[in-house]
């Protein structure tokens, strides 16, 4: 029964595909999967937008949207309708073709990433051997669309935003990749399915998630930071830094194209959360062995939503960094840490079983973090201050 529930979508797909003649079956299967992804993730986008607005509101002692539908749950629908019926303004001197293509490219590229994500047991659209590689290739293409948008708008704010976005995303791609390499080293595979399989084992009822190992945890933190920067989320939301650049690269977009950017951003967020969950939090595997009765796809989506909530929480709390600080942080702190982490992962591998490797690896990483942080703060002369008073 639990197995049935777990595999309900897979079985459903097989049943439907079985209805058509053999030669058409692969195509229908692909179409079904695509439709499912295109239906589920924009739905999740709507939910996370609502969650963000409500959650942010609650953090700021407000209620948040509560007028459309009960408790405001229909707010995303209203927003969508509004975006659809708004006039689509294109600046006179903009490059019309590129201006039109930019949001389309973003949405397409972002959805491509889902092809390799295992969303449940046997629920990977394309179980690719080099899934991780494919994912990063697709993720990197998003920069193209952002640059297209910024350049074609012929707006100075857009241009500045696009420049920032490209610099930032390229910089953070490096730590993002390197922190994932740790997982590849531990599993010996680039296949995301394989990575989940490795984590889906239990000792004393506890899972073997990579986040519970020293270098896995370090990689997880680095990955989270880089993922935030990669999706242009607060505190790394400089490309659209509202207070300085109005709306950054999509300043000149309105109506449905604006909505597409919005959608692209959130879907990218969801997908990178999905990747993070797959790599470090065991993908679709349950957090405790006894919880395996709950279907695997539930765990996958639950982990995504928790990740999104953390994003929202950060957005509600932090101010934004500045461009050069962001770059410094990426190249001078996160990157060395990820490199060290690779070293530690190697050490872990060769030290063999036992408690010693836990202590050594944790100590190395912790010391590096504390030292690096302190040196970084010192060199920039940051720190708390004391004040004098005049009577």
């Amino acid at each position, binding site marked *: 029964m639990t197995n049935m529930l777990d595999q309900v979508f897979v079985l459903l797909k097989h049943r439907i595909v079985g209805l058509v003649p053999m030669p058409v079956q692969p195509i229908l299967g692909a179409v079904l999967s695509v439709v499912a992804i295109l239906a589920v993730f924009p739905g999740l986008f709507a939910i996370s937008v609502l969650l963000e607005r409500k959650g942010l509101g609650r953090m*700021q002692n407000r209620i948040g949207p509560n007028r459309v539908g009960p408790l405001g749950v229909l707010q995303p629908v209203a927003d969508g309708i509004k975006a659809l019926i708004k006039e689509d303004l294109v600046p006179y001197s903009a490059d019309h073709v590129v201006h039109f293509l930019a949001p389309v490219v973003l949405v397409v590229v972002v959805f491509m990433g889902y092809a390799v994500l295992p969303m449940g047991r046997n629920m990977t659209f394309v179980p690719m051997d080099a899934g991780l590689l494919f994912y990063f290739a697709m993720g990197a293409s998003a920069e193209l669309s952002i640059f297209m948008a910024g350049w074609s708008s012929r707006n100075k704010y857009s*241009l*500045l935003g696009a420049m920032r976005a490209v610099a930032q995303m390229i910089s953070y791609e490096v730590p993002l990749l390197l922190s994932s390499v740790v997982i590849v080293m531990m599993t010996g595979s680039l296949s995301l399915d394989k990575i989940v399989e490795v984590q889906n084992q239990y000792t004393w009822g506890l899972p073997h998630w990579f986040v519970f190992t020293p270098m896995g945890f370090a990689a997880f933190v680095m990955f989270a930071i880089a993922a935030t920067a990669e999706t242009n989320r607060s505190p790394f939301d400089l490309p659209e830094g509202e207070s300085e650049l109005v709306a950054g690269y999509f300043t000149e977009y309105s109506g449905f194209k604006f909505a597409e950017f919005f959608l692209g951003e959130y879907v990218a967020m969801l997908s990178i959360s999905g990747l993070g969950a797959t790599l470090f939090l065991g993908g679709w595997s349950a957090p405790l062995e006894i919880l395996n009765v709950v279907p695997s796809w539930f765990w996958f989506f639950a982990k995504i939503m928790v990740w999104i909530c953390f994003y929202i929480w950060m957005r509600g709390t932090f101010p*934004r960094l500045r461009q050069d600080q962001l770059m410094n942080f990426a190249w001078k702190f996160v990157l060395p840490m990820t490199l060290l982490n690779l070293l530690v992962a190697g050490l872990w591998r060769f030290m063999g079983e036992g408690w010693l490797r836990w202590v050594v690896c944790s100590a190395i990483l912790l010391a590096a973090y504390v030292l690096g942080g302190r040196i970084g703060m010192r060199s920039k002369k*940051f720190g*708390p201050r004391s004040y004098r008073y005049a009577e």
Partner: protein
Amino acid sequence: MSESLLEAWNRPPTIEVDGEGELLEVAMGPHHPSTHGVFRMDVVLDGERVIKLKPVFGYLHRNHEQIGQTVGYLQMMPYTDRLDYFCSLTNNWAYALAVEKLVGQAVPERAEYIRVILAELTRIQNHASTIGFLTQEMGASGTPLMYAFREREKILDLFESLTGSRMMCNYMRFGGCRVDMTEAHLNAARKIVTGLPRFIDEFENLLTSNEILMARSQGMGVLKPDLAVNAGITGPMLRASGVNYDIRKVDHYGIYDRFSFRVPLGEHGDIYDRYMVRVLEMRESLKILEQALKDIPAGPFIDPKAKIRGFKPKPGEAYGRIEAPKGELGFYLISDGGTSPYRFRIRPPSFINLTVLEDMCIGQNVADVVVVFGSVDIVLGEVDR
């Protein structure tokens, strides 16, 4: 479409400057999310580095000085509310002080206490919201701002129950105040004062040790003390540069010599110091409030001989100034014996504090421009008047 407009649109976005290469010229404002209203900065950028910055004023210019010269002395009082609409009560006080100086009007003791209480409450709510706006400009999605407004609301509720209006108080009169602060009002003020330290602690927890805030504000927008003095900078911004000059301590206007409070001073003159000086000033204001609310005597709240109608000062002039939350707010009045001033001049702190905006921004990043600008703490109603 006209040819010139077309040309303007097709012009390349960069400008050529000798020796500097291609530069980007951006007009930040008047329609910009972080210019606190309608203010414009013409910024010339090399990449993201600021090469030149020229502030452009006047989008909210209503010529208050001309209004002041056409309407009578009392009639100007409600207009002063509309200068710095965040701190109408300190504006009222500065104007009342100038007129009282012009005619030699004494103020009863209770009225002085009421003025101090209201001015310090105004200072707290202004500083809190300024920090909120500052962090908003750093990109904190409004959380500190909302917390600041939560507390500000309590203070404004007190203002409304006392003066009848939340922001446009029009409360002070020459020789006192318009209505008395009853025991209920005083108790409400006491309740606010006891609740505020917790709020400031919360605020500091959220911000003071935040590494991102430190990175964004420490060493940014430095203002050297010599320049600050020479450029006539006043208020928290001056004290953040380490110059000990608080008009409450220097002029002892009102009854400020009766209270024990300290003046926090910064050391580096950067944005972080401006932030911290404001936080510490809020704490000092709380001290003043505690003392004032304890000591407030009974008595008349306005000089019974004070004239409301037919106010005609003798010819002469006076310059009255107070330490408003944003700096030195002064009113300069010349009377020719008529019912309205011959010359009415406002010395707006936020306007003059902008003198050094360019000096603080040059060489910084474009992202820092808005933060530096936010740390100056201006209200366009007062800048443009």
